[in-house]
């Protein structure tokens, strides 16, 4: 890409965003963000969860109204109020979930609402001929009369892009288009992107696959916590610097306290996985979890952390490898199996996958224990009250009212109640996915203290966190993931923010290349 490293000013700018601000209540989702997209440029928009990427996209595409700032398209200020407005202005978006109609033919999908007609009758043959010609431009020679659902996600993406571009789009926003594509399909998509860029269309590329960003993009803009961290030419930006921009860690910041770790061989192995994995989900990995030990999972968003947790808990079925508990091979095909083995899982999406908002704190706490005992052995109300009060006191859940609907509690207290739910089942292994996300600072420290306490009581813990400082603080070992594979395991003194960063950034072949 040396020929494209001309100063950005040389490219006429297409989309100019200045001082964009957007709040939701007290939460500042975007603060004073600038973003410039040039004609024919492929520009990556990067950031971890909550960085503000999707808010930015939604403001530009008219889903949210902005609080302040300007958006100019080819010099004219625009303020789209709906997705339709944005499309008419020339900004098209293709999401990871293809927003087309799987039951209609490819040709109908390309021309729905603007099919060629004669006397009110759709000219099917003409429409198919045009659709076929249009897709040939994108390197696809397919039967456009077949239902969209019969084609791969890549073809569906390209159909969505072709429709958008054919509707005279000048700016194309691709929101994680490659997340469900294999390597070959990604190449097809990249060919299309390069062709469109050569035609002068500006492309915003949102992805968490850094290899792909380095392969296809001209410039990178990084957001973090709703603020602009910077925009760089990709050629001038070493990978380690990019990751630092995204995670917000400097090497100098790595001083921290750590629990003195005893040699881990001294601990008894509680659960172990050998060659455990699922094709297209997480590459096979080996993992040993020991009693009284915290294993941290570190990596960028989408690197396979949550996927690993879901495999471990049986929420996703592994297609290779085996799991064993206390040396005996076990079946792990469903969360029910996992709960039966004494595993617990606090998912990242606390609101949708964790709590049952309308039930009381007591009911939420006894849920897993009751499920394990089975419906024919109900916990008496007295037992329920006892259990609920015990954990409310132990974890200091506030307010200490077991009859309050859990949806009314703060995030930190909901998280504690979820912990209580699993603790009540006296688990052997607890998997915590982002236990401190969306929790205020005070509760944050408490949760971390709890993690340490639990560990000392002989539980095995597998914890996922984007907060590297946090992970370093409580982990005995840290497994680093990249591109859906476990790439490194750090132990003892090697558990440091700098070494995690280095492992994430290491320029090794990606999981996809290894797999294929």
């Amino acid at each position, binding site marked *: 890409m040396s020929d494209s490293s001309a100063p950005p000013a040389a490219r006429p700018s297409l989309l100019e965003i200045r001082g964009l601000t957007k709040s939701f209540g007290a939460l500042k989702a975007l603060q004073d963000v600038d973003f410039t997209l040039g004609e024919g440029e492929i520009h990556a928009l990067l950031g971890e969860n909550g960085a503000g990427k999707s808010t930015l996209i939604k403001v530009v595409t008219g889903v949210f109204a902005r609080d302040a700032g300007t958006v100019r398209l080819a010099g004219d200020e625009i303020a789209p109020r709906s*997705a*339709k407005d944005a*499309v008419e202005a020339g900004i098209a978006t293709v999401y990871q979930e293809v*927003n*087309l*109609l*799987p*039951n*209609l033919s490819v040709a*109908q999908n390309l021309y*729905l*609402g603007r*099919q060629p*007609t004669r006397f*009110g*009758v*759709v000219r*099917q043959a003409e429409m198919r001929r045009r659709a076929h010609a249009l897709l040939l431009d994108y*390197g*696809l*020679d*397919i*039967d456009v009369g*077949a*239902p969209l*659902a*019969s*084609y*791969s996600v*890549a*073809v569906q993406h390209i159909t969505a892009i072709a*429709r958008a571009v054919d509707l005279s789009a000048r700016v194309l926003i691709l929101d994680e288009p490659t997340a*469900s594509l*294999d*390597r*070959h*399909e990604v190449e*097809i998509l990249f060919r299309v992107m390069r062709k469109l860029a050569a035609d002068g269309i500006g492309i915003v590329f949102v992805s968490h696959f850094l290899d792909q960003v380095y392969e296809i993009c001209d410039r990178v803009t990084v957001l973090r916590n709703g603020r602009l961290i910077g925009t760089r030419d990709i050629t001038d930006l070493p990978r380690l610097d990019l990751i630092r921009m995204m995670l917000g860690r400097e090497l100098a910041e790595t001083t921290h306290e750590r629990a003195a770790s005893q040699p881990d061989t001294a601990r008894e192995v509680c659960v172990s996985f050998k060659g455990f994995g699922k*094709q*297209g*989900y997480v590459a096979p990995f080996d993992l040993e979890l020991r009693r009284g030990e915290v294993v941290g999972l570190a990596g960028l968003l989408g690197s396979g952390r949550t996927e690993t947790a879901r495999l471990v808990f049986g929420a996703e079925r592994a297609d290779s490898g085996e799991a064993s508990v206390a040396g005996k091979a076990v079946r792990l095909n469903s969360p029910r199996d996992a709960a039966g083995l004494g595993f617990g899982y606090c998912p990242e999406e606390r609101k949708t996958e964790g709590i049952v908002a309308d039930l009381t704190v007591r009911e939420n706490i006894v849920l897993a224990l009751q499920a394990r005992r089975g419906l024919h052995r109900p916990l008496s109300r007295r037992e329920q009250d006892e259990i609920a009060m015990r954990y409310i006191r132990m974890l200091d859940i506030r307010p200490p009212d077991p009859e309050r609907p859990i949806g009314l509690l703060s995030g930190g207290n909901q998280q504690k109640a979820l912990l209580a739910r699993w603790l009540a089942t006296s688990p052997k292994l607890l998997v915590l996915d982002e236990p401190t996300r969306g929790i205020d600072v005070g509760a944050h420290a408490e949760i971390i203290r709890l993690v340490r306490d639990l560990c000392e009581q002989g539980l095995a813990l597998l914890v996922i966190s984007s907060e590297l400082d946090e992970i370093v603080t409580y982990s005995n070992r840290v497994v680093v993931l990249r591109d859906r594979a476990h790439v490194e395991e750090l132990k003892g003194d090697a558990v440091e923010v700098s070494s995690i960063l280095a492992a994430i950034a290491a320029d090794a072949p990606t999981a*996809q290349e290894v*797999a*294929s």
Partner: protein
Amino acid sequence: MKASTSVAITAAVLVAGFALCALQFPNIASTRVVANLLTDNAFLGIVAAGMTFVIISGGIDLSVGSVIGFTTVFVALAVERWGIPPFAAFALVLVLCALFGAAMGAVIHVFDLPPFIVTLAGMFLARGISFLLSTESIPITAPIYSAVSDFAIRLPGGGRLTAIAIAMLAILVLSALLLHLTRFGANVYALGGSRTATALMGIPVGSMTIRIYMLSSVLAGLAGIVFSFYTAAGYSLSAVGVELDTIAAVVIGGTLLTGGQGSVIGTFLGVLIQGMIQTYINFDGTLSSWWTKIATGVLLFVFIALQQGLMALARRSSVKPPGVKPVGVST
């Protein structure tokens, strides 16, 4: 491809069923019986055409039976008591039905309510109004009625293709053209595929919803007029439960209850199957006519199970796209 498979299966069931009936009662295989079957089910065919649009778009219309009942009462009163010329009465009642359907569509869209609830309310409303108009059966004696029932095209073999059977066939053909050949029809399928995606693609979802329910109510009104010809009377208790027969015909015809897939020809076959069962029971003479319901129930169950099975099969052997060779990973 899947849609045509469903229709082919329905057609096969119809042919096989007819063959079995004909084996037992050779008289069934005559133009007379077939033509009578068309006449007896003319109103069902017309209302089922409208229901096909509604169900493909992902909705349901429970009000059609009541709308038929209302139409018969209204037409009978208008012609016999109020002295309105029959054709003016037909036009008037169709306008009322159109407004009724449009109102249901608008409520469904604007308040984002489930069609099931809204048309259930419509069902009670229309039935209530027809009782309000009259609780007794009103015979219609207008000359046009006897003229129309006398009219028929003679078929070889003694069958009489009546005016109302011709009306049904004409409406089915027009509906098939509208559904399969126009932008409107494509939008109906789109809505059944995904409302959100359809809206994102710039299709006016609101006006589509209104027009679809309007079409269904107008066809129910037409079915009501045909029903009044068939019975030469208006009665507020007529066509009770017809909405369910209609839905059954549509589903047996291969239209997915979840929307997005189906055809008018399939619906026609579904209507014929129901008519065939009825005819068989009439011929047998010893069976209670309620066996029609039992047979329909069993068929419905079998067809829904079949559709699910076919879909599962299609998912498993999903077509490998030419031009793109998937490598290794598959999800």
